[in-house]
């Protein structure tokens, strides 16, 4: 099979040829008696997109929120760019599953929110926000309100907000799960272009196997009870064949099948 794989039961080390933008070390998270994450370690290579894929309840969103600094781990550390972090910081930006747009604020104010909190002057942040609104294809909607937009357009606003603060790491929590299938496909294609053009590290939580294989440079498969990284897959051959050819590439299909085979027993 033409794919490189690192199979380890726990604590998989990053391949030596990659520099890690984010590394998670021995993270444990308990909610009372419930163990959400146990001793999880994972490396996220710089400039690439890593998916966290797994059945519901495997703690993938919990892990992402710990990396974001929104949740505190019970034990273990998170390093971003070599520095240990415990709180949200300017090096990370978050894209929310439910968009988390402020309904009383116009598109441009929503996009500029992060810049505003960083103390960027009004005229400057509006210029930056306008640029990213245009980049995500929402030019002309600057003064619209979120309730006037479709689900897909709302998530574009959420994406523009995360891009506008120019963080090194983009944390995406099932960003496309609340948009319709066709919009999602377009988003996935756009995301590939984004990973290619922006020099950023993407952490992408999803429950869709096809989506993970389609967009990822590296897929971390998480299994529940106790939550652990069971496998890391690095698709190698189809990334450069163009977005139209990925879904019929034999390696793509093989990886999708293989992931389903290993997840099947965990889905009730």
């Amino acid at each position, binding site marked *: 099979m033409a794919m490189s794989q690192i199979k380890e039961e726990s604590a998989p080390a990053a391949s030596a040829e990659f520099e890690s933008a984010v590394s998670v070390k021995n993270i444990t998270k308990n909610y009372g008696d419930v163990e959400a994450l146990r001793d999880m370690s994972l490396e996220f290579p710089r400039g690439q997109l890593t998916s966290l894929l797994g059945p519901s309840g495997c703690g993938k969103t919990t892990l992402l*929120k710990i990396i*974001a*600094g*929104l949740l505190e781990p019970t034990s273990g550390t998170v390093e971003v760019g070599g520095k240990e972090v415990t709180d*949200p*910081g*300017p090096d*990370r*930006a*978050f894209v*929310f599953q*439910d968009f*988390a747009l*402020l*309904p*009383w*604020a*116009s598109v441009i104010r929503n996009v500029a*929110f*992060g810049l505003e*909190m*960083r103390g960027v002057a009004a005229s400057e942040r509006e210029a930056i926000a306008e640029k990213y609104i245009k980049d995500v294809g929402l030019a002309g909607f600057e003064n619209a*309100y*979120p*309730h006037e937009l479709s689900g897909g357009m709302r998530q574009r606003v959420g994406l523009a*907000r995360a891009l506008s*603060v120019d963080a090194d790491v983009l*944390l995406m929590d099932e960003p496309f799960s609340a948009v319709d299938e066709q919009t999602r496909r377009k988003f996935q294609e756009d995301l590939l272009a984004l990973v290619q053009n922006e020099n950023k590290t993407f952490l992408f939580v999803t429950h869709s196997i096809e989506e993970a294989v389609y967009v990822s440079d590296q897929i971390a498969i998480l299994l529940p009870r106790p939550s652990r990284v069971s496998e890391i897959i690095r698709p190698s051959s189809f990334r450069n064949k163009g977005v139209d050819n990925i879904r019929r590439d034999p390696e793509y299909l093989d990886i999708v099948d293989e992931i389903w085979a290993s997840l099947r027993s965990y889905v009730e």
Partner: protein
Amino acid sequence: MQNRALLLKLLSAVLLFGAWEIAGRVPVSFAFPTFLESMAALVRMTLDGTMLTAYAETLKPLAIGVAISAFLGIAIGLWVGLSKFFDWLFSPIFIVMQAAPLAALIPLLVLAYGIGLTSKVLVVCIMAMPVIVLNTSGAVRNTPESYKEMGRSFLASDLSILVRIIIPAASPVIFAGLRLGISAGFIGAILSELKITPTGVGDIITYSRSIADYPSMYAAIFSIILLAVLFLNLLEKIELALFKGNERGYVSD
């Protein structure tokens, strides 16, 4: 669309006042005047200055009470909503205040604070404040978690999260509480004038009833309702001006 809303409002007013007129002509009761008689009394009292003097008196406790209830009520509500401790400390007081049979407690207030303005302001506050506090604190507690997470992940300070996220998110329910509280305050103002000392609009009501001048009595009641409705409309305008995105279909006009 605008015209249609206005038309519907006019239609509903015509239906209501028409029914009033018919009920007055039947008559339902000797003590129930027709709409036209009441309006005539209203015009007469407005022109001879009776209304003006009456409202100068009634508006004092009403305005002071409503202002205190709105500012203090929202402030305490925010506090209660943000802190479990203050919730534990204050919520029971306002729940009891809201459930208390106020008319029965007025003699106690008079005993403690006399028959002057203080007692009347207190009656307005007791009527208006609980619902404002309880609505505000409930709304603050129910701010969607993802908004707050969004604020934190984009490095908002605690104060920014309060001012830029929690208060705007809670504003529709806070304003709903204000609407309910302020209408209760209007009731409280009249109640205090009926139960403590007859002054202002309460005096017109009490006096006209005692001399069987029912059109004047209903004119006074009608005028206070009209004032309340106008004030609530103004409040809605203020809400829309402050939080434009709140206009999500539930605002009538």
